[in-house]
């Protein structure tokens, strides 16, 4: 027969064990709901930030477009004496703000400087590059003005004249060389 004190101790032990297990269950359930809450809060915060970011981007895009469109008139005016700029549509500014950065989006089949054959002999590299860049940022038809045509004609004419003079000059130099090679008799 078991000793009564031993039985009592065993009962107490089991009771304590049950109580401990019950306590653990309660604490676990409490932690799980707190994580969920945190996750939800985090998610909400993230969504808020995203929304704000989107709003900010939308604002920046709008400001960017407005500024780009405003500048289109400046360019048109600046070039007017030499190049006629006819914008296509009311919003010709084609550069866009993406999350990754600014992108000039208007693809040009043949740049104005190439189709008009405005090479290094007419425009310097900086101007040609700027005109090309302008065309990728703005959807526009560019055309040379009468004044520009005239200046280019003058340049071409001068180049042709120079080539003709050079041709005769070289022939004269050759004769001069040949005559100088034979000393004159006195």
């Amino acid at each position, binding site marked *: 027969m078991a000793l009564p004190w031993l039985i009592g101790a065993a009962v107490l032990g089991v009771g304590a064990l049950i109580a401990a297990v019950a306590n653990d269950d309660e604490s676990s359930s409490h932690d799980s709901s707190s994580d969920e809450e945190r996750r939800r809060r985090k998610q909400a915060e993230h969504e808020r930030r995203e929304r704000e970011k989107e709003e900010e981007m939308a604002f920046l895009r709008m400001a960017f477009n407005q500024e780009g469109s405003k500048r289109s008139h400046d360019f048109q005016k600046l070039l007017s004496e*030499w190049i006629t700029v006819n914008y296509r549509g009311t919003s010709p500014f084609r550069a866009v703000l993406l999350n990754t950065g600014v992108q000039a989006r208007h693809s040009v089949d043949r740049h104005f400087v190439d189709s008009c054959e405005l090479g290094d002999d007419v425009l310097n590299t*900086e*101007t040609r590059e*700027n005109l090309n860049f302008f065309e990728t940022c703005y959807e526009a038809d560019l055309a040379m003005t009468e004044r520009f045509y005239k200046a280019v004609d003058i*340049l071409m004419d001068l180049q042709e004249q120079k080539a003709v*003079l050079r041709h005769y000059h070289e022939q004269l130099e050759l*004769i001069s060389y040949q005559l100088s090679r034979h000393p004159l008799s006195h």
Partner: protein
Amino acid sequence: MNKTHSNSELIKKAEGILGNDITEQKPTVVVWGLMNAGKSHLLNMLTNHIETEYFRTNDIRETSEIKNFETEEFIFMDTPGVDANYNDDQLAMSGAEKADIILFVHQPQGELEKIEIDYLRKIKKSFGQYADKYIIMVLSKSDTESADNIELIKKRILAQCHETLGFTPRCYAISGSRFQAGVTQNQSGLIRVSHLTELIKHLESLKIDISSIKRERQLIAVKEAIKEFMQAERALQEKKMETERNIREAFKTFNRTMTEFRHWMQNNNTNLKG
């Protein structure tokens, strides 16, 4: 005169030089002088057109083009009298450019006039070291003045050549009329006092060394033309640079604005990434 016109003149000049055949053995004698100096009459005598004129003479301006007559020994060339008009002067100068020997005819009303000296200076320059030998002063119509006066004028002309132009040409005082009368009337005395035969003899003596003067003149003309071409090319280059400058200047503000535009784009980029 605009640049294009002057360049076409220059090209014409070059073509003349390039087409000049210096291997031609027959000397070209060009008669040159003021209007009514007696050039055509002298040529008629030199080419044996004693009774019938080949080169037309008159007191008014008769020669308005270059006219040639080729003998067995020479090519004789008449030129319009200078100082009549611009075209005649140009024509006379182009005639002088073809000459191996110049007979510079002056009628004995006095010493050389300024315009004659100016033209002589140009011609002399184009003959280089051969100017003394191949430019011959001819005092025409010597029968219209006394022998003493003719002698004085001759001395004065030679002094002008020496002092003003720095050369000493030969000078013949001739009388075409005496020569003509001498030939038609068969009077040797008249022919002798016309002094034309002396001039003819002298011309014949010059034939021997004609290739040297041809080459010398060609070389001088070529060098002169090269200088003019260089000048013309420089002028064209300057004009070209000026036009290029104007175009560059016209796009200066556009380029500046584009630089600023690119910076603005760049800033937007940076702001996004930041």
